[in-house]
């Protein structure tokens, strides 16, 4: 193989690498910028054809509550974007049951279809990732 061919081969292999990325969302929306930033980063990584999961635990479960109306705050209501994630092939949304229960929130109050998992299952999902980024 020529040097050029070898370089092309290496490049192709590099491009084909798909890693398991998990974005761990633990903050409520609007009070801080974390929730919105996490969502944007997840969308960016999906553009690179990675295997993306989103985890919602602790106050992060509040991000998915239905009926958010931000007119009074004069900030962007980014909650509809969670429903658009499917279009970017982000279909793995995990919500921790214990976090929902502590906050008196039911699955029916969430604005998108998710998989509700126990804290133990959540930790197993985390263990299975290549990269974990927390927000």
């Amino acid at each position: 193989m020529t040097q050029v061919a070898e370089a092309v081969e290496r490049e192709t292999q590099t491009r084909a690498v798909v890693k398991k990325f998990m974005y761990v969302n633990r903050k409520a929306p609007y009070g801080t910028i974390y929730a919105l930033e996490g969502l944007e980063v997840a969308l960016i990584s999906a553009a690179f054809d990675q295997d993306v999961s989103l985890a919602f635990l602790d106050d992060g479960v509040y991000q998915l509550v239905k009926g958010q109306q931000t007119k009074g705050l004069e900030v962007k209501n980014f909650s509809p974007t969670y429903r658009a994630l499917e279009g970017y092939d982000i279909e793995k949304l995990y919500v921790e049951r214990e976090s929902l229960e502590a906050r008196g929130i039911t699955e029916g109050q969430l604005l998108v279809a998710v998989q509700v998992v126990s804290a133990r299952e959540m930790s197993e999902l985390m263990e299975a990732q290549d990269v974990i980024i927390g927000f």
Partner: protein
Amino acid sequence: MLHIVNKSPYERSSLTSCLAHATKGGAILLIEDAVYAATRGSTAEAALKRAMRELPVYALGPDLEARGMQAAVIDGVKVVDYGGFVDLVAEHRTSQSWL
């Protein structure tokens, strides 16, 4: 004294500290992420209800609405708008923000 709290009760101890120091004659106003403390069925509900026997608790409406929590407010918590926020500050000789 008007006590203003703006942090989620699950993430910071601000509300707990506030409730331990607030006395009769005062009032508590929950804003930003602290409005989650004013919602039903949460683990923060009992402490807030205890406080409500001694002094009035208010929550900022626009912050509840932004978070989709307007229908989950605990009975007895008074929802105010920005004008109501200003009135509360004006009615009390001092206010304290529990950041």
